[in-house]
C-alpha cells in the first residue's frame, strides 16, 4: 500500500478512522488539534458521517464520547494535557463505569511548554484512573496503537489513554495503513446499570476495576510494543519510554546499542520485564519525555534501589523536553558544537498580528485604566494573552481557561475596584459562562470584556461555539441588557471605546463588554478561499 506522509497527530486520526471509529470529540489545544482537523477533512470520515464537530470543552467532549461508547460504538476524545484537568471528573469516572464500544482518550502533552501553561505528564492520570496507557515511539506506532486501541478497550471494557508529546504530534513521517474496519452497530450495555455510579453500584464497579488490574499488567507484559532488546554490555541497562526510544537509537546508528534496552509503549509498567533488566544490569538509565513517571516508581520512596538514574539524579534535566543531545550526554557521549550563535541575534517572541482586534481593545483599555490604577486586569488563555507582553503589558493573570472572570470576582469580593476580566469568545463558552453566573448570582462588581474575534484563533482558527450568540448567553445568564455593550474595535472608534469602558468600570454590578471584529487571520483565509473558488469557477 502507498505510504502516507502524516503528522503524528494525523496518523492517530487515520488509525482511528481505519479502526472503525464512529465519532471524534474534542476541544482544540496544541499539540492535539490536528487529530480532529484531519478527521474533519477525511474522505472516509465524511462518507461514513463520523461525528467530527468540535465540543464546547474537554469535559463535554469526554462525556459525549462516553455516550457514544455506551451506545456500543467506537469513539475517540482528544485534548491537550491541561484539557484532561478539565475532563478529569468524567475521565476518572469513566474507568469505573467502564465502556461498551471502544473508547480511546488521546492526550497530547507539551514538555518544554512550547504552547502551554505547564508540562504535566498525563501518564499519571492514566495510572490514577487505573486504565491502560499507550505511548507510541513514532508516527507508525501512533497509527497502529490508535487502530488497535479500540480492541484493547473493548477487550477489558475500560477506556484506554493514548499519550503523545508535542514532538511526535508535530512531526511527519511515512505511514503504512491497515485495512479499514467497519463501524460497530448500536448495542446497549449488557448490564442496564453499568453506568449508574450510585455508591452501591460504584463500589461493585470499582472492585471490578481493581480485579482486572492483574490482567492489564499481563497485557503489558505480553504486548508486542514492550520489547526487550538484549545487549552484551550489562554495566548499563536502558529503559526507554515512548519517543525517548528514538533519541536513544539516534545515538546508536544501525540500532547498534551494546546495552540491554527495554522499550516501553504500553502501561501498566511490565513488571517482569523490568525485573529482568534491573537484575541483569549494574545501573539503569530511565529515558522518558515528561515527568520521571517510570523512574519514580522504580526508585521507590526509600530509594533502596539506588542504581536507577535519570531525571531524579540530575543526569537528565528535571524539566523540559528530551532530545538526542540530552540522551547523548546521559550516555556519556560528547556533543560537538562547531558554530555558536552570534550575540547580535535577538529574541523574537510571538506577537498579536497587525490588524488584530485585540490590539485595539488593549489600546482602549490601557488608556482607560490610567484613570483607575494598575494591576486590576485578569485575563485568560488565547491570542489575547499576548497582551501581557510589551508594548501593552495590559493584563495581570493567565491561569486556566475561564479563570479571568472568577479571579476578577474573587478580587472584587476582596475589595478591588474596578475588577476587570479579559477573555476570548471561545474561552468564554469553554469555561467562562458558569463563572459569569457566579458574578450574576451575587451581582459582583466586575467588568467582563469578551474580546470576540469569532473564532478560536490561538489554535489556528477553529469554529467558536460563541459565534452569533454571545449577547443572548450573557443576558440569559442574567446580565442586565443595558450592561451588555457591543463595540467595534477599530482605531477610529478608540474614543468611543474608552467612553464605554469608563462607564462600565464605574458601574457597581456585572457588566459585559463585547468588542467584536473577525480575526484578521481567518478573514484573510476566507477571502483567499473565495478568490480560489472564483478562479475555479471561471476556468
Amino acid at each position, binding site marked *: 500500500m502507498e505510504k502516507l506522509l502524516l503528522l503524528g497527530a494525523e496518523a492517530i486520526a487515520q488509525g482511528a478512522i481505519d479502526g472503525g471509529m464512529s465519532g471524534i470529540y474534542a476541544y482544540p489545544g496544541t499539540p492535539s488539534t490536528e487529530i480532529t482537523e484531519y478527521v474533519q477533512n477525511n474522505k472516509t470520515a465524511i462518507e461514513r458521517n463520523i461525528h467530527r464537530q468540535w465540543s464546547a470543552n474537554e469535559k463535554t467532549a469526554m462525556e459525549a464520547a462516553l455516550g457514544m461508547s455506551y451506545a456500543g460504538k467506537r469513539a475517540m476524545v482528544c485534548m491537550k494535557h491541561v484539557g484532561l484537568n478539565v475532563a478529569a471528573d468524567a475521565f476518572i469516572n469513566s474507568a469505573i463505569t467502564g465502556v461498551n464500544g471502544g473508547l480511546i482518550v488521546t492526550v497530547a502533552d507539551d514538555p518544554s511548554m512550547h504552547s502551554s501553561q505547564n508540562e504535566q505528564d498525563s501518564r499519571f492520570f492514566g495510572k490514577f484512573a487505573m486504565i491502560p496507557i499507550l505511548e507510541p515511539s513514532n508516527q507508525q506506532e501512533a497509527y497502529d496503537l490508535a487502530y488497535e486501541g479500540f480492541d484493547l478497550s473493548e477487550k477489558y471494557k475500560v477506556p484506554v489513554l493514548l499519550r503523545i508529546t508535542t514532538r511526535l504530534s508535530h*512531526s511527519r513521517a511515512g505511514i503504512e495503513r491497515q485495512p479499514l474496519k467497519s463501524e460497530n452497530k448500536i448495542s446497549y450495555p449488557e448490564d442496564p446499570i453499568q453506568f449508574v455510579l450510585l455508591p452501591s453500584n460504584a463500589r461493585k464497579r470499582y472492585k471490578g476495576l481493581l480485579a482486572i488490574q492483574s490482567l492489564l499488567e499481563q497485557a503489558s507484559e505480553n504486548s508486542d510494543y514492550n520489547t526487550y532488546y538484549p545487549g552484551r554490555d550489562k554495566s548499563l541497562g536502558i529503559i526507554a519510554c515512548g519517543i525517548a526510544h528514538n533519541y536513544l537509537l539516534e545515538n546508536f546508528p544501525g540500532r547498534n546499542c551494546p546495552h540491554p534496552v527495554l522499550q516501553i509503549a504500553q502501561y501498566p509498567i511490565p513488571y517482569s520485564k523490568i525485573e529482568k533488566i534491573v537484575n541483569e544490569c549494574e545501573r539503569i538509565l530511565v529515558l522518558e519525555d515528561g515527568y520521571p513517571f517510570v523512574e519514580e516508581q522504580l526508585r521507590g520512596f526509600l530509594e533502596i534501589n539506588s542504581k536507577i538514574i535519570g531525571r531524579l539524579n540530575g543526569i537528565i534535566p528535571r524539566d523540559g523536553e528530551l532530545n538526542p543531545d540530552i540522551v547523548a550526554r546521559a550516555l556519556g557521549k560528547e*556533543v560537538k558544537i562547531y558554530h555558536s550563535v552570534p550575540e547580535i541575534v535577538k529574541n523574537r517572541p510571538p506577537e498579536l498580528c497587525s490588524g488584530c482586534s485585540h490590539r485595539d481593545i488593549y489600546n482602549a483599555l490601557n488608556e482607560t485604566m490610567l484613570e483607575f490604577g494598575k494591576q486590576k486586569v485578569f485575563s485568560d488563555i488565547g491570542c489575547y494573552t499576548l497582551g501581557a507582553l510589551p508594548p501593552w503589558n495590559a493584563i495581570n493573570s493567565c491561569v486556566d481557561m475561564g479563570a479571568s472572570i472568577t479571579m476578577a470576582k474573587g478580587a472584587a469580593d476582596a475589595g478591588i475596584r474596578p475588577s476587570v476580566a479579559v477573555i476570548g469568545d471561545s474561552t468564554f463558552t469553554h469555561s467562562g459562562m458558569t463563572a459569569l453566573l457566579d458574578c450574576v448570582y451575587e451581582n459582583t462588581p466586575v467588568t467582563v470584556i469578551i474580546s470576540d474575534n469569532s473564532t478560536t484563533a490561538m489554535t489556528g482558527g477553529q469554529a467558536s461555539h460563541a459565534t452569533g450568540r454571545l449577547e443572548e448567553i450573557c443576558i440569559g445568564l442574567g446580565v442586565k441588557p443595558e450592561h451588555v455593550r457591543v463595540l467595534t474595535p477599530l482605531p477610529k472608534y478608540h474614543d468611543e471605546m474608552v467612553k464605554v469602558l469608563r462607564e462600565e468600570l464605574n458601574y457597581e454590578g456585572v457588566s459585559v463588554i463585547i468588542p467584536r471584529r473577525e480575526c484578521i487571520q481567518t478573514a484573510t483565509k476566507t477571502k483567499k478561499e473565495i478568490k480560489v473558488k472564483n478562479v475555479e469557477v471561471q476556468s
Partner: protein
Amino acid sequence: MKSDIILSGVGGQGIVSIAATISMAALENNLFIKQSEVHGMSQRGGAVQSHLRISQEEISSDLIPLGKADLIISVEPMESLRYLPWLSENGWLVTNTTPFINIPDYPDLKEILGEIEKLPHHIAINADEIARQVKSPRSSNMVMLGAASPFLDLPYGFLESGIKKIFGKKGEKVVQLNIDALKAGREFAIEHKKS
C-alpha cells in the same frame, strides 16, 4: 543519500512549504522522512524552525542532534544565525537577505550579513528580489529551495516533480512560476558557491 536540514524563519513566512516540497520529493522516491514543524503560539510572528531529515536508511529521532545538520535554509537573515549550533563543521548555510523586522531591537543588517560572511560555507541571496525578477514575486521560498538545492543530497529533478505534485491542483501556471523561481535560486547558488 542523507540530508539533515534545519529550516528557519518567522511565523507566517511559510517555511513549511519548503519542507513540504522536499518531503514530497523524498516520499515519491521511497526515502525515509522525518519533518518536525512548529504549530501553536510561536506561529504568531515568533521565531520558528523545522527539522527535516531525509535518508535511505531508517531515521530514528525527529530532532537533528547538535552539530549534525548538513544544511540550514533560512528565509530570514537573523533567523539563519539562531540555529548555528546545529550546523555541522562543514555544513552549508543558505539564507535570504531580506529582513523581517517586527521587533524594536532588530540588529543592523550589515552586522548580520557580516556574521554570515564569517561562515566557511554560505550562500546569501536576496530571494525576494530574484522572485520579482522571474515574475513570481510570491515564490521567494522556492527561490530559497533552489538556492539550497546544490547542497541537498537529492537529485534536482526530484524537486521539480515535488513542486508539480504539490502545486498541481492550482494549475500549470502556478507550477511553472514555482519552477522558474526554483531554477533562478539554483543558478544563483551554483554561480556563487565557488567564490
